[in-house]
């Protein structure tokens, strides 16, 4: 580990004479193993860039463009600001003036590497719970930097290096090296067997008796050995390796440094060297050919597992950016709904409905696409719950629009669809959105029933809350008796009942799952409690209304408080960081949660007390 850091500092990277001309589309669909699954290199590149920088593109470059540069010509990207540092103190400690910036380049951090390493070693000794945010950030940067450095070295085997320069023409002839260009690790590695007889011959003799040729053979061989020692456990696992009846994917360095090489594997490593070389020389056609040849060779050998077969599907999914399209259309639908209220024309209303449907289509398609790639029910992580709840709220909005025909449903659908997809996008920056599930969640049946029910319940309550907002706004201008308010209240009732049924069913199914997998129906676990709170609150609202303890306005305000409870059950419980359901959380999202709860409370205070009273009947 420490050696790798030193090596990085020693080598440095001199940018080569290189032009930005090569298109890397042919690399996008190469299968890579990461996080326990097979994914296209395109996804891998996005994940890495997200992990380092919190964004999925950099400048005009896509993540894949950036990754190709980092792998093949690392010197060209070392001044790009890809390293996100959330605490300025960390950069100050490294001797870099952070100013207002949050992203820094490798070149900026490079001089402080030794210092960073030293501080990180200290921070590692502190228990995770006791680490300060700065220490956590320090470790995150340290981790990201080592991964960055590993990626930068991942294709060093294909680069010409002076360690492998051969001076004597005799040795060049023995090795059948092409004249002119410098040699890479791989060039020599592939020809190493030709030197074995010389090596055997000198083994027994004293170095002072070696000839110049023998000396050079010895030097080159020991360079080979040292390089393979220093380049262990590097990414990118893109070569399938069969053994012990199962398949594992290894990186080219694993093939070369760990002595795993069979003739096929060597050949594939050589193909990758061609890919890298043609990329560096800017030869598009040769590059495309080499990449295609590598892909064919790998796909021929790889076991046709679900992961491998679905790589093209996932690549297409990445390229289509369905949710991005949905977001735009939801925004338009929302505006159209608002316009519909102002101008009250039928065609405006219908246009709003049309836009909502047009937005929901890619949204639904995206969810189905994800299910097909993963072979799982729609939700296996927090990110996916936002996609799903968003879609359900939109569909509920459309149902309401069908019955009420007053733009309310469109506004609800457009607003909620856009908001929830935006929140989902925040969550996607946390890592692989199609990651593998841990053993305890590995049950498609329960993921499909309990999780779907409970999130439909969330959706019902959120939709009721949106209707509550609309009601309180309407109540500022009209009295309770007005037909518009009555119809909004009816929708609210229906949505809340819908939310109650599904929350209850989902909560109980969760109990059944718990009973099936660890033997107790109910254990007051935080997530169970969160779900219970939703059920209790809905039940409380209905009973309070029934007992005339609250009026319609109370019901509307109550439904908004319901949204706060849903937010707590959905996210707040994860924030607590205890229990079986906490899947991790970040402080930025916690802040977002508190802000949205604050806004909801302010909204109630700003609207509910000022509702228009019925006009007194003058005698």
């Amino acid at each position, binding site marked *: 580990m420490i050696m790798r850091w030193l090596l990085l500092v020693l080598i440095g990277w001199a940018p080569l004479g290189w032009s930005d001309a090569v298109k890397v589309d042919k690399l996008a669909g190469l299968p890579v*193993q*990461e*996080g*326990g*699954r097979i994914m296209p290199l395109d996804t891998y590149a996005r994940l890495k860039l997200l992990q380092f920088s919190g964004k999925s593109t950099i400048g005009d470059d896509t993540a894949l463009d950036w990754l190709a540069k980092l792998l093949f010509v690392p010197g060209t990207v070392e001044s790009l600001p890809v390293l996100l540092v959330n605490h300025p103190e960390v950069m100050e400690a490294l001797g870099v003036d952070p100013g207002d910036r949050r992203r820094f380049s490798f070149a900026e951090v490079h001089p402080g590497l030794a210092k960073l390493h030293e501080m990180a070693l200290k921070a590692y000794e502190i228990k995770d719970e006791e680490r300060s945010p700065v220490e956590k950030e320090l470790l995150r940067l340290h981790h990201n930097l080592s991964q960055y450095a590993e990626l930068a070295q991942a294709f060093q085997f294909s680069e010409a290096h002076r360690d492998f320069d051969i001076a004597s023409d005799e040795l060049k002839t023995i090795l059948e090296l092409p004249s002119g260009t410098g040699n890479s690790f791989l060039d020599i590695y592939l020809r190493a067997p030709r030197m074995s007889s010389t090596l055997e011959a000198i083994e027994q003799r004293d170095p002072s008796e070696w000839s110049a040729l023998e000396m050079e053979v010895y030097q080159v061989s020991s360079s080979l050995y040292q390089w393979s020692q220093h380049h262990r456990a590097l990414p990118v*696992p893109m070569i399938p390796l069969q053994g012990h009846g*199962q*398949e*594992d*994917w290894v990186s080219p360095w694993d093939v070369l440094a760990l002595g795993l090489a069979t003739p096929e594997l060597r050949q594939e490593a050589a193909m990758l060297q061609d890919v890298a070389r043609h990329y560096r020389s800017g030869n598009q056609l040769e590059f495309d050919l080499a990449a295609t040849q590598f892909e064919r060779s790998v796909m021929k050998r790889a076991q046709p597992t679900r992961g491998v077969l679905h790589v093209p599907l996932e690549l297409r999914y990445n390229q289509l950016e369905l949710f991005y399209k949905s977001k735009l259309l939801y925004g338009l639908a929302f505006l159209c709904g608002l316009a519909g209220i102002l101008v009250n024309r039928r065609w405006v209303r219908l246009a709003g409905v049309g836009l909502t449907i047009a937005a929901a289509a890619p949204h639904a398609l995206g969810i189905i696409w994800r299910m097909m790639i993963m072979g799982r029910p729609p939700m296996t992580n927090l990110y996916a719950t936002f996609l799903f709840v968003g879609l359900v709220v939109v569909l509920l909005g459309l149902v309401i629009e069908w019955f009420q025909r007053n733009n309310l449903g469109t506004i609800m659908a457009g607003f909620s669809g856009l908001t929830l997809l935006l929140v989902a996008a925040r969550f996607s920056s946390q890592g692989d959105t199609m990651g*593998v599930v*841990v*053993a*305890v969640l*590995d*049950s498609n049946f*329960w993921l499909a029933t309990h999780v779907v029910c409970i999130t439909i319940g969330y959706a019902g309550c959120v939709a009721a809350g949106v209707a509550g907002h609309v009601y309180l706004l309407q109540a500022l201008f009209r009295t309770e008796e007005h037909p518009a308010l009555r119809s909004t209240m*009816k929708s609210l009732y*229906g949505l809340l*009942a*819908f939310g*109650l*049924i599904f929350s*209850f*069913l989902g909560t*109980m*199914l969760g*109990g*059944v*799952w718990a*009973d*099936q*997998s*660890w*033997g*107790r*129906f*109910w*254990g*007051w*676990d*935080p997530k169970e*409690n*969160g779900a*219970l*709170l939703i059920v*209790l*609150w809905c*039940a*409380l609202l209905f*009973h*309070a209304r*029934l*007992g005339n*303890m609250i009026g319609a306005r109370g019901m509307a305000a109550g439904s908004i408080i319901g949204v706060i409870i849903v937010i707590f059950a959905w996210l707040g*419980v994860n924030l*607590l*960081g*205890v*229990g079986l359901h906490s899947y991790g959380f970040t402080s930025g999202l916690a802040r977002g949660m508190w802000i949205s709860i604050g806004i909801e409370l302010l909204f109630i205070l700003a609207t509910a007390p000022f509702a228009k009273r019925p006009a007194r009947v003058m005698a």
Partner: protein
Amino acid sequence: MNKAAATWWKSALVQWMFSIPLTVFCLALLMILTFWGTLYQVEHGLYAAQEKFFTSWAVWVLGVIPFPGGKLVLGVLMINLLGYMINMLAFQPLKPGIVMIHAGLLIMLIGGAITHYYGEESYLSLWEGETSNVSSAYHEWELAVWKRDGAMRDVLAIDTKGLPAGETLSFAPTPITVEVKEYHGNARAYQNKSEPSPYLSAMNISRIEGAPLRKEPVENIPAGIFTVRAPDMEPKDVLLFGDDTAPLIIPVGDEEYSIGLRQIRRPMPLLIKLIDFRKELHPGTQTPKSFSSLVEVQADGITRQLTISMNKPLRHRGYTLYQQSYRETPDGKESSTFAVTHNIGRLLPYVSTGIVVLGMIVHFMAMLVKHARRQRRQREAVS
């Protein structure tokens, strides 16, 4: 119902007990408890939160102000529900959906009470090749005495919950009585290598010291000092520690008795042998993909092999065994731990959930139909 009963039923107090405002009040209290209890878990752990908020009659705020506990609120809700149902069935037009929902909830609360009072949870850890028919409680301990010889051992055990110093425990029909000198629910034990312990101790422990109870009760290790008496024997002071590797042997006359402090043992009506534990990881990661245990089960004279895995427990006569965790030694030995539960009310939540959901569907569908009819009538009236 006769007139007097009807009058009593309709009296203000009784009606209030069964009223909707009380329901709302109880639901609000339950929400507060749930929220509070959830936050409490962050600092104090799940078990403490359950004890303090959910299975208690009262929560003491700052030690002096009582706040109704989960047991009390749920109990009142149960009476409230029951009364409401009687009221509705006797005096009001019948709404089948509503009746079903509330009957279902009532069954659920009853099921919860049964599980709370009669359910048992324990665990069973087996190394590969090992066989057992007794499971151990997680954090309840017992003082056990048994005759050392013979294959069949009659064990006499006394629950150590709240053992007061000075109490004398009889282990009849054995001649042994034990007086408690000191007992700690959680303790630290100290060995003194240089000199022998003043007590009889299986691990030559010379001193114990009470320690604060842990957040997770599973982590508590009790210890105690006891005076063991028997006819024809000098009273002996023994020191027992929960982590003793072997029980203490006490010779009484011609017999030898074993005495030990151990997690309460619960016999099961089946004999289980772990043949193989299997763990699968997602490739290239440390994320577990699945755990499973291949076991041989002997019960009712039949021996069969089966696999217990996550989400696939073994059920036998009210007992359920779940794959819970595992251990590995560096030399490749594996052990598997099963959670064992015995709960006669296990099916009640299933039944009640079905009834409630059906009731909700019936009720809200009826409302929807009513609403749709009214709307159609209004439209017809307009046209």
